[in-house]
């Protein structure tokens, strides 16, 4: 996967690249705040910048030095060094979350409007009016996490408690919560599909329907609780995977891999490890067929995730706690029930063809081109046009001329990309080019020497992806 000249993209390197990118994202966000609301954020901005440069970036210096030394000498790190390198990266990730919490004290720029293009595409994947017609909104959060909030029910419940008004008029709005520092990163918008999945699940009471099947009882007797919550999470993951394929898995790995308890389930969520394994088997049996690059990238990412879990198991006391059954029903069979329900709702699906197209689009991204549409290969256009002219001149049968004409026209049409294809292309580009670039760039004498360049890359790739999503809507108008 890596074309890096100095690194191999093993676990420490992958984590270094992820963490460095995470800090640079905070940095880019500060740039945006500075541009839009400066000078009112002057002093806090300076404090943030100092923290980033003197604490967070600097914490990568020793992990980098050791990892680079190990690669160059072709000698593995000793176990204590390996342990400290991975620990330090986990700790810096927590530091990023800590700094992120304080971003609420800065004035917040608006979320980019391209998010709503993706939201529309996700909504359109649901034939049911109740999903596609709902309004959407995006809130930004100081927590470095992604979510969906029942704003309507929350307000309704507050008003009911205060005995003011019940029920609240109007439709539920789909409100997505994104962390400040990732709001401009289209690759992380995939998580929106999971969050819309929660909305869909509530709308159709899917969780209860499935649990009723598991327990063989009527829907109104389904108990609330952890099992229901877990099923709801698995449904939302299944929606994310259906609509965005491997890109959804990559985002999920990106936000979880640095944590210390990957095997531990909570009262509301199955363990991250279980969710990644479920996602992996789902992808293998669906869209990965016929997409060789995505298949190999997915394998690499899954292997890195499993390696991190083994590290956690060895050093952080992590374990895969339970979570393999729901009311004695194997998770795999619950996932099958989920698939069946989603199939019945006729929800759109990312196809293998789309993923193969994303692989071609990634090549264009690497050249710095937007990927709003796939340009067909235009072979022998001149000779075909001349042949039509000759056919017209010799009064050839009209059906033959029409066939030749449409052949030329089809080859001229640029088929618009979907947001899902664009985001998958973005991930392929990230893993094949951006991460190795980071690792090579960090081989510079100091980390600070490379920060500016990487921030330029972040902005350039974000802009390419966002422009692609916006322009794809225009392409559709001309179809």
């Amino acid at each position, binding site marked *: 996967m890596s074309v890096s000249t100095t690194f191999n993209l093993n676990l420490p390197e992958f984590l270094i690249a992820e963490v460095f990118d995470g800090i640079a994202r905070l940095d880019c966000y500060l740039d945006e705040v500075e541009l839009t609301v400066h000078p009112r954020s002057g002093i806090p901005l300076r404090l943030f910048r100092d923290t980033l440069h003197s604490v967070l970036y600097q914490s990568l210096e020793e992990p980098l030095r050791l990892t680079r030394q190990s690669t160059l000498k072709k000698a593995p790190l000793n176990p204590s060094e390996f342990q400290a390198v991975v620990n330090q990266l986990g700790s810096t990730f927590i530091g990023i979350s800590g700094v992120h919490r304080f971003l609420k004290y800065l004035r917040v720029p608006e979320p980019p409007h391209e998010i709503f293009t993706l939201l529309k595409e996700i909504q359109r994947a649901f034939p049911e009016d109740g999903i596609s017609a709902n309004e959407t909104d995006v809130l930004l959060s100081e927590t470095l996490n992604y979510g969906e909030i029942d704003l309507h029910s929350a307000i309704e419940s507050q008003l009911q408690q205060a005995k003011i008004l019940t029920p609240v008029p109007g439709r539920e709005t789909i409100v997505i919560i994104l962390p400040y520092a990732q709001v401009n990163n289209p690759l992380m918008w995939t998580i929106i599909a999971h969050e819309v999945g929660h909305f869909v699940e509530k709308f159709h009471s899917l969780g209860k329907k499935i649990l009723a099947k598991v327990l063989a009882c009527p829907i109104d007797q389904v108990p609330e609780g952890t099992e229901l919550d877990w099923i709801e999470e698995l449904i939302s993951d299944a929606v994310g995977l259906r609509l965005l394929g491997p890109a959804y898995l990559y985002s999920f790995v990106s936000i979880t891999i640095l944590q210390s308890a990957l095997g531990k389930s909570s009262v509301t969520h199955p363990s991250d490890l279980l969710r990644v394994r479920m996602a992996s088997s789902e992808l293998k049996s669906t869209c990965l067929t016929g997409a060789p690059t995505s298949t190999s990238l997915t394998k690499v990412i899954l292997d890195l995730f499993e390696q991190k879990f083994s590290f956690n198991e060895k050093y952080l*006391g992590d374990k895969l706690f339970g979570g393999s059954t729901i009311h004695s029903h194997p998770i795999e069979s619950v996932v099958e029930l989920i698939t069946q329900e989603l199939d019945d709702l006729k929800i759109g699906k990312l196809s293998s063809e789309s993923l193969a197209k994303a692989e071609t689009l990634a090549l264009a991204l690497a050249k710095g081109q937007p990927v709003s549409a796939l340009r067909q290969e235009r072979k022998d256009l001149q000779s075909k046009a001349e042949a039509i002219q000759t056919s017209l001149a010799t009064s050839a049968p009209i059906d033959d001329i029409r066939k030749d004409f449409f052949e030329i026209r089809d080859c001229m049409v640029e088929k618009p990309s979907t947001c899902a294809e664009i985001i998958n292309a973005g991930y392929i580009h990230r893993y094949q080019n951006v991460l190795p670039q980071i690792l090579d760039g960090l081989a510079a004498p100091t980390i600070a020497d490379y920060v500016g360049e990487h921030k330029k890359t972040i902005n350039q790739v974000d802009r390419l992806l966002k422009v692609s999503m916006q322009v794809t809507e225009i392409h559709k108008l001309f179809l």
Partner: protein
Amino acid sequence: MSIKEQLKETLGHMTDKNQELAVFANNAVFGISRYKNGINDEKTRGLLQQGEELCTVLRRGADMFRKPQPEPYSIVKSDLSSLLTFEFLSEFFKENEQNVPFSLDNLVQKTTEEQSVLEKLLLPERPTEDINKRVDECQNFFASLGSIFVRLANDGLRQREKSERIHYV
């Protein structure tokens, strides 16, 4: 309600503190690694110094832990911080006996021993062969401490993200 329980209500404090202590422990490992590679510069000394400071925090916390606890407001801030660190560690050791390479009982002894190794490495004159033999063990100790603090910080982070109305990913 114990001091620790009071502070668990506002977990942010310990999450950040544990993250900071993890960095100290990891940096001690990196310092030793530089030392073993013959890099004995200011940076190496700075990293080793952080390991030494961590030992002081732990030993002070252990002392306070053994004494009858006075009201929190009567404890100076640095002592309170050490005490809390030790309180959280003791709970962690109780819950994770199987996964930790040493016990709470020998933590203090271990801390004293490894602190003395670091002190010797920080001396201007070259340490004796005896100390050099102990360096790997010292590095392992700080690597293990780093893992413990990372995990404690991470657990705090997860708790902070709980919400009734929001479905997090």
